[in-house]
């Protein structure tokens, strides 16, 4: 574990710490940006924490390809299986609880105790969503009593590849609160991290990679939000867009671009910086399609 105080410091005669090279997460692999670019990430006091990849439009397109490739398998997995995989993610998060608390403290500028509290809430949120995998269909689907001799059933299905702009603040709890609901129902995700606080998200990739989550189900890009969001919003093979991390003007521009192939768009909610409240179904249903199947009844 490295903290801002020890990172890069050798003055106190302490052991020289091993710094982490933060990388993107695409298709289950950890590439650098194809552009070769990085940018400096600092803590809330402006002190250097790390260099993060400054992902490019090409990285975004590669991530979409990976997410599309993973969609059939992930959406076709049983709900029980998806639930167990998500629960496994929570187990891995729990194992790295101290690491995440430190990263959250640095990223969000929180005192250590508060950072631990937020980290615990993030892990608990992930567990909460894991349990939804095999319940959401019963809650939002069901039989329809049509006026005729037909069996008629409505079932929710994942919409496909979802581009998610993670909240600009709340680098872990906010992140988990937008990512878990997208994938628990069978979608695959291309997630753009908070520009200023990308490190917890890039570390989450390491958790996902060791949690039985198939490669490509979640792809994580750090960089300039607008630079990455524009090609994702315009991408013809992206089905939906979560604008949680976009400010008003950018959100409007992206929503207009998303109209080109009628992406499902979840607008940023006013006052959405508080991620502690019970999220309900509101972040799952926007990325679900309702399929209704009819069949005649008769001998």
């Amino acid at each position, binding site marked *: 574990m490295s903290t801002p105080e020890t990172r890069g410091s050798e003055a106190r005669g302490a052991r020289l710490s091993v710094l982490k090279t933060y990388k993107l997460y695409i298709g289950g692999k950890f590439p650098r940006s194809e552009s070769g670019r990085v940018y400096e990430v600092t803590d809330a006091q402006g002190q250097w924490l790390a260099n993060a990849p400054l992902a490019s439009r090409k990285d975004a397109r590669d991530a979409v390809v990976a997410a599309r490739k993973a969609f059939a398998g992930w959406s076709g997995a049983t709900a029980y299986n998806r639930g167990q995989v998500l629960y496994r993610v929570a187990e891995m998060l729990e194992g790295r609880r101290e690491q995440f608390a430190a990263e959250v403290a640095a990223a969000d500028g929180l005192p250590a105790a508060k950072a631990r509290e937020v980290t615990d809430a993030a892990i608990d949120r992930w567990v909460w969503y894991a349990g939804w995998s095999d319940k959401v269909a019963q*809650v*939002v689907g*069901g039989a*329809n*009593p*049509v*006026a*005729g001799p*037909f069996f*008629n059933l*409505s079932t929710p299905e994942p*919409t496909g590849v979802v581009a998610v702009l993670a909240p600009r603040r709340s680098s872990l709890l906010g992140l988990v609160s937008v990512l878990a609901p997208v994938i628990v129902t069978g979608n695959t995700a291309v997630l753009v991290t908070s520009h200023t606080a990308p490190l917890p998200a890039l570390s989450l990739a390491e958790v996902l990679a060791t949690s039985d989550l198939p490669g490509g189900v979640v792809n994580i890009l750090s960089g300039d939000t607008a630079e990455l969001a524009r090609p994702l919003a315009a991408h013809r093979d992206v*089905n939906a867009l979560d604008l949680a991390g976009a400010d*008003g003007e950018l*959100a*409007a*521009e992206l*929503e*207009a671009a*998303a*109209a*080109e*192939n*009628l992406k*499902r*768009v979840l607008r940023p909610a006013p006052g959405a910086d508080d991620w502690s409240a019970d999220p*309900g*179904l*509101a972040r799952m*249903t926007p990325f679900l*399609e*309702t*399929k*209704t*199947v*009819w*069949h*005649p009844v008769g001998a």
Partner: protein
Amino acid sequence: MTDPVAPSAASKLFAYAPAPESRAVVDIAPSYGLFIDGEFREAAAGKVFKTLAPATEEVLSEVAHGGADDVEAAVRAAREAFGPWSALPGAERAKYLFRIARIIQERSRELAVLETLDNGKPIRETRDADLPLVAAHFFYHAGWADKLSYAGLGPDPRPLGVAAQVIPWNFPLLMLAWKIAPALAAGNTVVLKPAETTPLSALFFADICRQAGLPKGVVNIVTGDGATGAALVAHPDVNKVAFTGSTAVGKEIARTVAGTDKRLTLELGGKGANIVFDDAPLDQAVEGIVSGIFFNQGQVCCAGSRLLVQESVHDEVLDALKRRLATLRVGDPLDKNTDVGAINSAEQLARITELADSGEREGAERWSVPCELPGRGYWFAPTVFTGVGQTHRIAREEIFGPVLSVLTFRTPDEAVAKANNTPYGLSAGIWTEKGSRILDMAGRLRAGVVWANTFNKFDPTSPFGGYKESGYGREGGRHGLEAYLEHA
């Protein structure tokens, strides 16, 4: 091989005598105004347009052409009505909707004849499909008005406000019902813009609202053209936009709404695949193919316009299909024996004609029902293209007419791949006797409505709407209410 559709002695023997439905049941006024704040009024700019009977090109009436000022007045009326309407106990709103449902039932023959005149669709369909579904839609949603806390949006969900609703010409009154019934049940007020070529049934509905005693301003009808609809959806005091129509216009509306707080649902185009396996009950499948693409002259967003037939039964299915199509009666929509009526407008006929011609040019084989078409009005003989490739325009673009494109497949995987090879995702059909295959296919088809061993069935309890570029949101059922409510 003998021609499967050569006129036989039997078909001559059993020729039908004309059986026209009486027009006397409906009294169309020479002109109609906009329905705003409970009153009919002329358009502020005094503009009017004519609405025609597409079967005869007869002018039915002259209708006010609403402009920006009229939209303004209608939205203002709806806004003023919203407070009291949304504050009514749900049980009271329910009773208004029950009244409307009952009056529609009472006046259903009149409305069926009116719709057939203005739209060109057969009286058999307006009488037996459109009108019963319209009444059922109001009856179903009436019961929701005092049960919204059970709609899955938490206790006491709130209406959105003023709903701007723009509907198409293919099912004018039914699309009105799909829009207005859930909006009112949830406590919203509405401004509805009917299609330019089919304004009359919405104006008759305005009269039904008056008969039902609906408070003024709760329902406002602004007739006009595309510009009228654009002004309505762009109006800043609208909280909700609901549109049914073409994908191109739907995208334009999505751009208009971007960056606002308006909620949006879109029910757009389709290119539905109707998939027939070699073990299907072929006679039933042929009936399903026919109703899938020739119901309402194929002017149906969820039409089964691409027939995917398993290669081994291609010839058998096509022979049976052509035999069946030769028995369709094309002509006077008011004749109770008519199966296929008129195309809704000259513009739509031109589009169908152009796309069908492209099918020939691109190398598909064209076959049309050998039938005599009336000399006046807008007509297109039911047409089947065989040898269609996936790249042909008639396999990719929505024709919205009585034109079926036939493709083949060998394996279920190939059928799924071809069926899903479209930006649309509204409907699909599956014909097979094997239950496990139905469920497998139904799960893999990316479409909002899947009909297995049936096609083109609708019900107010059954959510309807598309995947991908067929739009978003659902209409009907509990799901449809979500489009008009928000968490408390």
